[in-house]
């Protein structure tokens, strides 16, 4: 997809005023936030596990070259192949070559953010191979011709009515013309249609939640079981994964798995957690005959050792999206590319460049919820600040914004003047507010008061109070 991250402000405005989208997003609190809270509450060791998870991934990143090579050696030992790709274009070509060698006409797909990142579906289609998304959410947005709006719930912006409309529109060739009014019936219809696709597919492409260096295993986590049917029924299984998915041992993976589902959906464990190692073995009655792992860099290795190094610990649980007031207000599409929410606001500029995606890190109130819930303890707000600094230093922001920021920076470095001006401003605002005690219009900041009032300052500034020693516990 062509990124629209540059239009983030316009996208956001449209999203906030989209009643339909707002209705779809309204399920998030109960669906994700409350469930995560309950699951975490049931595991007293959760915080300690977060520390261990962070340390495991930090250790992997420090030794990433070693673990990649170990993983490759184990995959090859088991009869699989590893393909190293620096760019999305290279990964697409590699996948196409494997599909052609397999004589593929149709390809089933498990949900994969790397698949989205490299736009593999469009590419396969352009080359005469039909890709079929099998995760229900991904299937829905494939029918709609849209990118995912959430990394684990790609169709969260769709209502049940939307899904019913899409199925009526697209399922006629299968003899399904009735419009269905229940989620149960919609799931059943998709199940029936996709079941045949699973059986007919020549190649199955999945993503990977983890790559295990110890055994050369690929870990895929789903609730639907689509990942398993995608990789077990076709003759060829292709895995797409980025370099930072490595984990040393099965035990390390276990620690991360204890964090993943709880953080993502509030489940104690996802329904299906599958470790796949090489192609089918002699005597096996099912499983793929060929096993390929396509490992994608796409700019990640260059982020090591820098300000965004720790972002590569991300395990794509989406807790930061689910708890973000900005994401919950605008949804994922406003971010303009495949990753959204706080992790997307840091990831997207890394992969697309700050010119394209410089707006995204500005969309944060720095409330800190993302970092507070991140199982890998990634300091997302700090990283957004780094991007803001780069945006300023690189002169990517609007001249007026930069001018005002410079003025502000100068002012706060002159405390005496700052104190006098803020005291003056407080008094002026109080006068302007009059008896109401609130301002419905603000000089020079009209945008802020469009949808809310500013309460007038009531007395002295915080600094003045502090100077006067009205600190708690001082007896005043």
């Amino acid at each position, binding site marked *: 997809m062509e990124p629209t991250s540059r239009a983030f402000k316009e996208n956001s405005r449209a999203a906030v005023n989209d009643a339909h989208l707002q209705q779809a997003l309204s399920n998030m609190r109960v669906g994700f936030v409350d469930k995560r809270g309950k699951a975490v509450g049931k595991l007293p060791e959760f915080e300690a596990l977060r520390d261990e998870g962070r340390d495991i991934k930090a250790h992997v990143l420090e030794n990433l070259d070693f673990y990649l090579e170990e993983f490759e050696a184990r995959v090859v030992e088991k009869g699989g192949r590893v393909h190293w790709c620096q760019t999305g274009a290279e990964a697409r070509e590699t996948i196409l070559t494997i599909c052609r060698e397999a004589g593929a006409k149709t390809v089933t797909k498990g949900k994969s953010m790397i698949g989205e990142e490299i736009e593999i579906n469009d590419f396969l289609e352009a080359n005469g191979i039909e890709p079929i998304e099998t995760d229900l959410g991904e299937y829905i947005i494939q029918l709609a011709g849209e990118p995912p709006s959430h990394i684990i719930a790609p169709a969260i912006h769709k209502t049940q009515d939307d899904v019913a409309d899409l199925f009526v529109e697209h399922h006629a060739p299968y003899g399904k013309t009735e419009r269905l009014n229940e989620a149960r019936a919609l799931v059943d219809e998709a199940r029936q249609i996709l079941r045949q696709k699973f059986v007919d597919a020549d190649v199955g492409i999945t993503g990977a939640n983890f790559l295990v260096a110890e055994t050369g295993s690929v870990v895929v986590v789903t609730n639907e079981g689509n990942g398993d049917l995608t990789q077990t029924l076709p003759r060829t299984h292709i895995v797409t994964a980025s370099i930072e998915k490595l984990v040393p041992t099965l035990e390390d993976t276990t620690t991360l798995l*204890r964090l993943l589902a709880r953080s993502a959906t509030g489940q104690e464990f996802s329904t299906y957690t599958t470790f*796949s190692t090489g192609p089918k073995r002699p005597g096996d009655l099912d499983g793929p005959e060929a096993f390929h792992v396509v490992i994608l860099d796409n700019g990640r290795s*260059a982020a090591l050792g820098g300000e965004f190094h720790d972002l590569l610990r991300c395990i794509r649980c989406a807790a930061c999206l689910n708890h973000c007031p900005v994401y919950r207000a605008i949804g994922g599409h406003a971010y303009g590319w495949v990753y959204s929410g706080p992790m997307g606001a840091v990831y997207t500029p890394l992969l697309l460049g700050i010119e394209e995606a410089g707006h995204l890190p500005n969309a944060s109130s720095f409330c800190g919820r993302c970092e507070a819930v991140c199982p890998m303890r990634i300091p997302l707000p700090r990283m957004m600040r780094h991007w803001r600094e780069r945006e300023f230093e690189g002169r990517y922001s609007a001249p007026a914004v930069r001018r005002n920021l410079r003025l502000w920076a100068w002012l706060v470095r002159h405390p005496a003047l700052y104190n006098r001006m803020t005291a003056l401003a407080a008094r002026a605002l109080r006068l302007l507010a009059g008896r109401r005690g609130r301002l419905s219009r603000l000089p020079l900041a009209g945008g802020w008061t469009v949808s809310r009032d500013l309460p007038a300052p009531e007395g002295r500034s915080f600094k003045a109070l502090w100077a006067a020693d009205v600190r708690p516990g001082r007896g005043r």
Partner: protein
Amino acid sequence: MNDSRAAILATIAKRLGRGPLDEAARKSLRARLRGHAPGLIPARAQLPHDEQLALFQEQAEAVATTVERLDANSDVPGAVADYLARHNLPSEVVMAPDPSLDGYPWGDKPTLQIRRGVTAGDDLVAVTGAFAGIAETGSLMMLSGPDTPTTLNYLPDNHIVVLRAEQVMGTYEEGWILLRSAGAMPRNVNFVTGPSRTADIEQKTQLGAHGPRRLHIVIVGSAQEDK
């Protein structure tokens, strides 16, 4: 392709501010892999075996698995037949060619039609064993192999798993230890925790997205005294 491999590895080493890892560093990393030390293991499942069995059942039922406890091998065929009758299912199952299932007297239920082998997707009910039951989350640990085809866990609408009580253990880590002692990693290790589900339509959970709509676990025997 090899160029990309070299380029990626070189960038990693360079960005980490070091050259390629020296032999001493590699040795210590290899030792970490070989040691595969467990991390923090939650206290939840570190229990006497009878309590692990109870926890397994409780956790499995919490994710919509049904669980039945039986005393003896001879009860198993009847339990399977009753389950089919209870759910109005035909008295036909596809059963894994797993020899661990041979010990149950299936002949006692002559009306139960059993086909041993793999499924093409047209069977309604699969009966399999499992490698282990993990009490921590009520999960089944299933391995692929000539006697245990993976598709039996996914294609039929109903999945009945016959587990011996001594196969139920506390944690995933115990499963890994048992697996390593049994030999190499099979093509698939599947942890199955409840029947298939999706919440992709308005976050309302529906069972039976692509995998089984029902998962039933039959546990045979009683807790180990000294486990």
